[in-house]
């Protein structure tokens, strides 16, 4: 983006609830403030953006004084924040004491960042500009003082709860505008300020990561054509110059461990495929691949069945194939799906593929996802073969309700912000909004865990609301689609009506919450209220063992 475009976007009239951001830096924020506001406005078109800044030359103080409510904080470090002697505006003689002085300053910043990160999302960028020429060594040599300072900065990155931008992202050689730094105290070229702002805002408003990857097999998961070369003729190793496929398989393991769903769509003989996937030297763990669609029917049919098994939309899935025709067919059938041609021997392909699924934290539920989907299929098949009552009666299910909001379970906000189908109203929350909501004394939060003889689903639902006299106003109710068909939703209502006489539902119809509407159509005609007496008359038999735990 150019400066003039950035100004036009940042200065245009804005409406909507306020989104407050602190931009903390030790230099004059000038065009960085404009660029941050412009990128936030592009990402949050329905909000009014306010970007606050601090005091020149006092990054630690700016962070410590940030006690007002914030939706996000962006912390931009430069060498002068560690010690002014390292800056281009006021360079000074550097001796060993600069390390201890810098440690004191950085500790102060680190402590303030830690406090801020407890109540809002914080994104930090480490110094992106070269240090002033205050050291006697040549540019190519990593001098011991600089190495010690870098060690401190990387120590902060390793221990902080804040998101830290990788400094390698910004090494292009055109970052520094020394003339501007000398004249105005603003050290960046606008292109660098824009890139930095975009990077920081991306961490504050991360794009929703993709949920699943559907892969082809021949010339993709492995080198060679299974039907022609046989199961021993396909390869993914250095000896056969097909090592790139082995790296791809390892990436699939990494994604699966992070809870990404992996499916296979291959035009192949099913028997051959199952034998090939049983090879002991396969890098990708076969248990990660579900479902496997191996047959000769068109790929879009396979993709459709995989989406159905996963119960996710095409916009949440990436399809990878080496055949442009297959890619075009799938794209035509599912325009919202991202279809990528497999690029052999291109490291950028794998890195960019990984980034589409990137997530900061891996939770217990991520590890359970594939197993619970497989089990879900077992449950559905069992339902087809028996009545739901007889199935649930023998499921040995346990539902655990965990009450408590101090500290709030981060899984609750994750569920709220990614669940579409069984969602009371589709309302999303930022971390700061969620913290503010929970800070109301009348608010209650309950996170629901489930396990039965088919397997553990983990934390699959969250409910939150406010006590209103004899009743409970339910603002938030989300449940993972993996938990459907087990009457967990009924058990949730029963639990709440055990405490309160009635539930007032803050229900709103969304494009995708039909499962919630279907449930409420029976439980709460009009979708506004459920009363204890009427629920008890309507509720089907529940077989779960329940446990209610107060945190």
């Amino acid at each position, binding site marked *: 983006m*150019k400066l*003039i475009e950035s*100004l036009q976007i940042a*200065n245009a009239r804005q409406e909507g609830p306020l989104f407050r951001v602190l931009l903390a830096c030790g230099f004059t924020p000038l065009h960085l403030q404009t660029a941050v506001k412009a990128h936030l406005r592009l990402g949050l078109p329905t909000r009014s953006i306010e970007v606050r800044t601090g005091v020149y030359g006092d990054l630690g103080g700016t962070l410590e004084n940030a006690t007002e409510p914030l939706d996000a904080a962006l912390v931009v470090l430069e060498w002068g924040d560690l010690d002014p002697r390292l800056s281009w505006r006021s360079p000074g003689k550097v001796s060993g004491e600069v390390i201890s002085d810098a440690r004191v300053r950085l500790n102060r910043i680190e402590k303030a960042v830690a406090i801020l990160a407890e109540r809002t999302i914080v994104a930090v960028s480490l110094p992106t500009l070269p240090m002033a020429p205050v050291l006697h060594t040549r540019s190519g040599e990593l001098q011991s003082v600089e190495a010690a300072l870098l060690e401190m900065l990387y120590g902060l990155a390793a221990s902080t709860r804040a998101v830290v931008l990788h400094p390698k992202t910004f090494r292009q050689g055109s970052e520094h505008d020394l003339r501007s730094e000398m004249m105005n105290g603003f050290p960046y070229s606008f292109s660098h300020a824009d890139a930095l702002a975009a990077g920081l805002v991306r961490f504050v408003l991360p794009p929703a990561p993709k949920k699943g990857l559907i892969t082809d097999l021949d010339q993709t998961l492995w080198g060679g054509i299974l039907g022609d070369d046989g199961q021993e003729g396909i390869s993914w190793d250095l000896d056969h110059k097909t090592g790139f496929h082995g790296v791809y398989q390892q990436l699939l393991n990494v994604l699966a461990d992070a809870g990404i769903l992996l499916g296979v769509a291959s035009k192949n003989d099913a028997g051959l495929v199952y034998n090939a996937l049983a090879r002991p030297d396969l890098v990708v763990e076969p248990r990660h691949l579900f479902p496997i669609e191996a047959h000769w029917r068109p790929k879009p049919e396979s993709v459709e069945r995989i989406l159905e098994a996963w119960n996710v939309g095409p916009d949440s899935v990436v399809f990878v194939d080496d055949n442009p025709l297959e890619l075009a067919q799938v794209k035509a059938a599912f325009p919202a799906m991202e279809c990528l041609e497999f690029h052999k021997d291109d490291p950028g392909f794998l890195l960019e593929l990984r980034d589409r699924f990137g997530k900061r934290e891996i939770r217990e539920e991520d590890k359970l996802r594939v197993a619970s989907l497989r089990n879900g299929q077992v449950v559905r098949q069992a339902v087809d073969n028996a009545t739901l009552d007889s199935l649930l009666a023998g499921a040995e299910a346990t539902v655990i309700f965990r009450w408590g909001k101090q500290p709030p379970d981060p899984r609750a906000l994750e569920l709220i912000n990614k669940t579409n189908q069984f969602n009371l109203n589709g309302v999303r929350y930022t971390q700061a909004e969620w913290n503010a909501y929970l800070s109301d004394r009348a608010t209650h939060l309950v996170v629901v865990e489930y396990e039965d003889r088919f397997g553990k689903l983990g934390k699959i639902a969250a409910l939150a609301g406010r006590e209103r006299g004899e009743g409970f106003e339910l603002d938030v109710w989300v449940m993972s689609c993996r938990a459907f068909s087990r009457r967990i939703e009924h058990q949730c209502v029963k639990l709440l009506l055990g405490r309160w006489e009635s539930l007032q539902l803050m229900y709103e119809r969304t494009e995708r919450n039909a499962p919630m509407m279907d449930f409420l159509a029976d439980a709460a005609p009009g979708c506004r209220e459920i009363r204890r007496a009427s629920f008890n008359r309507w509720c089907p038999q529940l077989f779960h063992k329940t446990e209610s735990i107060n945190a």
Partner: protein
Amino acid sequence: MHNEQRLIRCFQAVFPDLTETDVARASVSRLAAWDSVATVTLAASVEEEFGIQFEADEIEKMNSFQSFLKYVATRSGA
């Protein structure tokens, strides 16, 4: 686009509430919003738009739309 139109675009990016007529008459003394940050922002957007670079002492003299217009005309040879 003429220099004047391009310069008006720069001014309106910094002062979005000004009409073209207002911009033509804009100066530090007539416009409360025109502070030192606005001067630096204007100078940077004019530099970007016209591919020129101000000297530090030249920026200090840029105190009206007309002074910017005159400077741009001199530097771009128009």
